[in-house]
């Protein structure tokens, strides 16, 4: 156990959750992150899919990293990722059809999700499979928790529900409470992520940029 979770692997796992978060610090994978967060359920499914795909892709690339010719490595990485995404997409169509309809093209867009290419290039190409696996899980979770937080607030304030259960009591509506329709619009996802960035950087002074 001590060998499996050495200080380095712990750092590799915990770093992406906060100080090295893929979305708010590395600025990766925002493309598909924001569009699916209007409700909590698709955000959860999207987060899970990305965790699985990043971890698997990291392991596969790490296993074959010494046999990939340098010039065509991007295409090799893309093919590995595309194959994994196809599997996940077919799986969702079979077992969670409603969610896969809501996610529409964004499942396919995991292929070009910068988190994947970024982690494969920066980590899996130069590290052993086990560490790459931990790195993939860590970055996947770092991505997923941002999605879940954004999805939570957008669904709660935008439609007063969570996972489609009514959370805000009927009495509130009778007193004049109105759902904030703007929360369902795409721009509010950006503002929520900006708020998360603000809170995070207010706590970690070393993340702040000069200009």
């Amino acid at each position, binding site marked *: 156990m001590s060998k499996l979770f050495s200080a380095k692997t712990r750092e590799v796992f915990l770093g992406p959750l906060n100080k090295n978060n893929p979305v*708010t610090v590395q*600025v*990766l*994978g*925002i*493309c*598909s*992150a*924001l*569009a699916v967060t209007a409700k909590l359920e698709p955000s959860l499914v999207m987060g899970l899919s990305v965790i699985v795909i990043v971890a698997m892709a990291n392991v596969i690339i790490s296993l074959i990293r010494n046999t990939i010719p340098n010039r065509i490595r*991007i*295409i090799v990485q*893309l*093919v590995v990722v*595309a*194959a994994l*995404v*196809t599997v996940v*997409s*077919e799986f969702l169509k079979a077992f969670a059809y409603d969610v896969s309809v809501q996610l*529409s*093209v964004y499942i*396919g*867009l995991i*292929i*070009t*999700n*910068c988190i994947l*290419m970024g982690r494969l290039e920066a980590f899996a190409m130069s590290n052993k499979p086990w560490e790459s696996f931990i790195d993939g899980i860590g970055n996947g979770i770092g991505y997923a928790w941002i999605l879940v937080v954004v999805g939570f607030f957008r669904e709660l304030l935008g439609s007063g529900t969570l996972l489609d259960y009514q959370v805000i009591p009927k009495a509130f509506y009778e007193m004049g409470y109105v759902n904030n329709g703007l929360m369902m*619009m*795409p*721009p*509010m*996802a*950006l*503002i929520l*992520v*900006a708020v998360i*960035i*603000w*809170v*995070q*950087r*207010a706590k970690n002074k070393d993340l*702040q*940029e*000069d*200009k």
Partner: protein
Amino acid sequence: MENIINIFVKSIFVDNMIFAYFLGMCSYLAVSKNVKTSMGLGLAVIFVLVITLPINYLLENYVLKEGALAWLSPNLASLDLSYLAFILFIAVIAAIVQLVEMAVEKFSPSLYASLGIFLPLIAVNCAIMGGSLFMQQRAFLNIGEATSYALGSGVGWLLAIVGLAAIREKMEYSNVPKGLRGLGIAFIVVALMGIAFLAFSGLKIG
């Protein structure tokens, strides 16, 4: 013809890649620090979109779709290869980007120098793959519509990135709260631009 113009205008303003679907956000935020480089990247995106999208359209309609192989032999009419779409689309995009890079390097070294590292990076730009996937979802009637969608999306993306770059250049002089500097304020600017673009929703020509 009217339909083609309608698709073109709608894909610039209403279905804007950035403000409505957040496609290509990574390079959008990373490269939008000055107007000149963002212009170069925007042009490169238009270029690659206009080449790859019609090719993927032909692939989708003559190879991948259910029954699309019927032109080859009637026995293949029941074949549905659409699960191969992701791999084929991304392979086409990666190959085209590589080809375009080599062609530009050979025939126009000055353009190659000005685009620099952006060309190879476009292969993993979500806007390109997203364009192909939306094309598949919307089932355009003919290749003209698909091309006009590609051109419109590209122009919309260029408009968005040049606009953001211009605002960020001006923002050098403003006093932003410490925690929001850089990335945070860029997000908020994009959100405000997106709200402005919401005004176009429902726009229709003809």
